């Protein structure tokens, strides 16, 4: 397996993990706009800024688990930000104002458990193109346009349950295609 293009000798996250002075500031400068923009797609209200602060605290805590062989820094940070935003929304919906903050977010440790599939834009793009057109359309509405499931159901005329199922199965299909895309050391968990 060749070394992914995003693997550099010393990423900012490894510098953060090593406790290098100023590394967290560099990380904020590099990824702050991405985290901010991503969060605003999910939480566009007064809580957005608080959530970004929380996400950077988590990035700091999880920096040591980052493995550049698995994903780019932006993907790793995007995953943390997105998961935090989703967890935030879900807790808001379930019991607003009552749930204590969970310091640990609910996704697994990527460095320890993720399979090695390529997450770079080129591999994603080529694998996406092999998916059925309807799935690609649903992905576009969900990931690119940022529509919710009910909004997608409204736009497409599909039942809500169908939207949900097809997005899930589409994600699994994309993963399977990426797994077959030339990675020889995929760790098959399932």
């Amino acid at each position, binding site marked *: 397996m060749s070394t992914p293009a995003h693997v550099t000798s010393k990423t900012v996250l490894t510098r953060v993990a090593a406790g290098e002075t100023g590394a967290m500031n560099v990380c*904020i400068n590099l990824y702050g706009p991405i985290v901010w923009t991503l969060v605003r797609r999910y939480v566009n209200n007064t809580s957005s800024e608080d959530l970004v*602060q929380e996400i950077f605290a988590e990035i700091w805590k999880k920096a040591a688990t980052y493995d550049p062989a698995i994903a780019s820094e932006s*993907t790793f940070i995007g995953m943390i930000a997105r998961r935090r935003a989703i967890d935030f929304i879900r807790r808001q919906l379930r019991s607003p104002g009552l749930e*204590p903050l969970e310091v640990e977010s609910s996704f*697994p440790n990527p460095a320890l458990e993720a399979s090695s599939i390529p997450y770079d834009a080129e591999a994603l793009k080529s694998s996406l193109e092999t998916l059925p057109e309807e799935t690609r359309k649903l992905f576009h509405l969900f990931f690119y346009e940022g529509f919710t499931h009910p909004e997608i159901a409204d736009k497409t005329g599909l039942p809500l349950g169908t939207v*949900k199922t097809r997005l899930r199965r589409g994600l699994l299909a994309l993963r399977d295609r990426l797994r077959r895309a030339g990675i020889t050391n995929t760790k098959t*968990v399932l």
Partner: protein
Amino acid sequence: MNPSDPVNRYNELLAGRALGDLSLEEERELALLGKQLGISPDAELELLAGALALEPVLQRPEPMPAGLAARLHQQADMIGLPGGSPIIYPQVPAWKNILLHPMTGWAAAAAVVILSLVLTQTEAPLPPEQAAALLRSVDKDLIERRFVGLGEFKQASGQVLWSDAQQRGFMILTGIPANDPRKAQYQLWIVDPTRDSDAPVDGGVFDIPRNGSPVVVPIAAKLALSNPQAFVITREHPGGVVKSKQEHVVALAKN
């Protein structure tokens, strides 16, 4: 795909989790299936969904608000700085529970994580001024009082910072003589008017290892506090006392 196959169902639920669309029932089902199948979720689908969601963001990233960027950098500046003063830990095992008290909101989340680490890692103590700045950044309604040395302890001075919202705080003390813990120890008392004022809350026992530079002492209140009005340091027998006779009042901080 056969949805009734448990492995397929597990995969589908994992995908739903990565997409953020699991219902409560499905979350329980996912946990149960994982247990039954003897497998734990990997982050593959999370990373994949993250990569897909990131693509449009990378094309049009928006700058953060200046105030947010400044706060983030302020918090980042607190990390990894060389310690200038020791942190003195109160000898109350329960004090760690105070630091782990459930938080009451999101506003302080990031700094609170950092603050907790600052106050729990002896190898990386924070200089008092920065510790104070950090706590101020997480609670705008912070209670701050000045300590005044009393009697034979006139040289004592310092500051106490307490956050009702976070139920945590600390003291920055100078000029308190070093003590021999075999003979005497210092003890903090907190007067909370919502409680019996004749029985102030025990804030923990601590030592001053040497005379000189300021020390930071996390507050180890054994009870929840609400708008405490006064903080009193006394010198007591080793191990502290349940009720102080106030024979040796070291310093007082009050409104």
